[in-house]
């Protein structure tokens, strides 16, 4: 298992997402830009769902590098309080149960669950009893 790109999240357990803090303004963005103007900052693992949609068709390849087989997935915008809102997948939830405001936790998943050597991508899953 390997991250789809370097510098996206840590390899500790559990992993944490890595943002970038603008040294001049304090503004946090994701991913961390490859620039001396930004310093890497660890992002909170817990957040709430800010908005979402469901991707209902297989995106064009390139650039999409996922498996040929397609199942709809949730595209989430997750608010990490006081830091930044990040775009990632939301997993382990029925499509009809997704609600804005629900608590979620960082949980990277394989891009291709059927492949042993799949790249791992940023994702969130419902947190706590609301799952």
């Amino acid at each position, binding site marked *: 298992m390997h991250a789809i790109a370097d510098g996206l999240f840590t390899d500790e357990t559990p992993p944490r997402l890595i943002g970038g803090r603008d040294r001049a303004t304090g503004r946090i963005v994701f*991913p961390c830009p490859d620039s001396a103007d930004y310093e890497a900052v660890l992002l909170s693992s817990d957040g709430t769902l800010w908005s979402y*949609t469901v*991707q*209902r068709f297989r995106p064009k390849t390139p*650039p999409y*590098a996922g498996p040929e087989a397609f199942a709809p997935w949730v*595209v989430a915008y997750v608010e990490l309080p006081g830091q930044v809102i990040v775009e990632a997948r939301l997993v382990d939830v029925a499509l009809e149960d997704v609600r*804005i405001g629900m608590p979620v936790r960082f949980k990277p998943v394989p891009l291709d669950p059927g492949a042993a050597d799949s790249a791992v991508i940023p994702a969130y899953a419902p947190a706590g009893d609301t799952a």
Partner: protein
Amino acid sequence: MSDVCIVGIGIHPFGRTDGMSGVEQGVIAVRQALADAGIGWPQVQFAYGSSDAAGNPDTMIDRLGLTGVQFINVRNGCAAGGSALFSAQMAIKSGEFDIGLAVGFDKHPRGAFNALPSEYNLPDWYGEVGQMVTTQFFAAKIMRYMHLFGISRETLGRVAEKAFRNGSRAPHAWRRQPVSIEEILEAPMISDPYSKYMFCSPGEGGVALILASEKKARELGKPLIRLKAATMRTRPPHSFEVFAPSVDVVEDDSGPRPTASQIASADAFRLAGIGPGDIAVAQLQDTEAGAEIMHMAENGFCANGDQEQWLAEGRTEIDGALPVNTDGGCLACGEPIGASGLRQVYENAVQLRGDGGDRQVPGNPKTAYSHVYGAPGVSAVTILER
């Protein structure tokens, strides 16, 4: 300062025209606009041309005539057409020229736009995970807006239903068959909450506008359609845009995020010296049904959340208090990027001249508004007066 006037309009029907290039569709629109203005190509002193995917607009001089005319190509995302018009207006306002052309055309392959991360200064992984998809952003933006302001999915359906009904009355529209709201709501989903009828498709088409100084317009004897304002603006801080891996957190997040459209709109109203309540007909960017809803508020025509009632009461129908997208907008016409913003201005000129036929706004409208929005957070607005 005297006004810049629109003295000639031309359009090549939107949709799919197999076997005809985008440039050729632009040429057809230009010839129509020249005939409408009652002038020949040699009288055109300058041109601005916009195309995103169908080649360099200035190549059309091969077909129109090698007069040595100044011809500048414009590429500015979804605001390309608006930017061409803005530039043409400035050329006349500066006093340098008396009469010129703004032309836009495009011809996109079938299916959704296929953007690559490198074109938007984004890392490759963003596309590899399947997030380089414009529809995701538009859906997520309306999903939060519906949550904040109580807009129902049925209201999104009403917007699409109106678009196809209006499009059926517009000769230049692509989708010319009305679709029932039931069919719209129950159609296959593309990106929740949007079904396939709630998104426009990339397409083809061409639009040409001849602009002239007021003095020149009077000489030509054309009805004076005055371009009272043309603005193009970029995004403010904390906005939520297409292809955004992250969005700023803000202290008070109970309203919609600020947008380029709000800035372009406010500046256009300031320049024209009128307000949203003075507008008789509006063309608002409706690349998806929810965009029209949100743009009604972003352009100052109603408060956030009022759209639910406006649509239920039919206030944006052709015979309503503020007709919106009288030719069916992008939903019925499709979106050839380079031409789309100019189509809105074409439609407004048709309405102000009273030439709308089955889709004519009643009551002899005197003011018309157009608005486009696009990646990565650009907007262009025009206000016309007769």
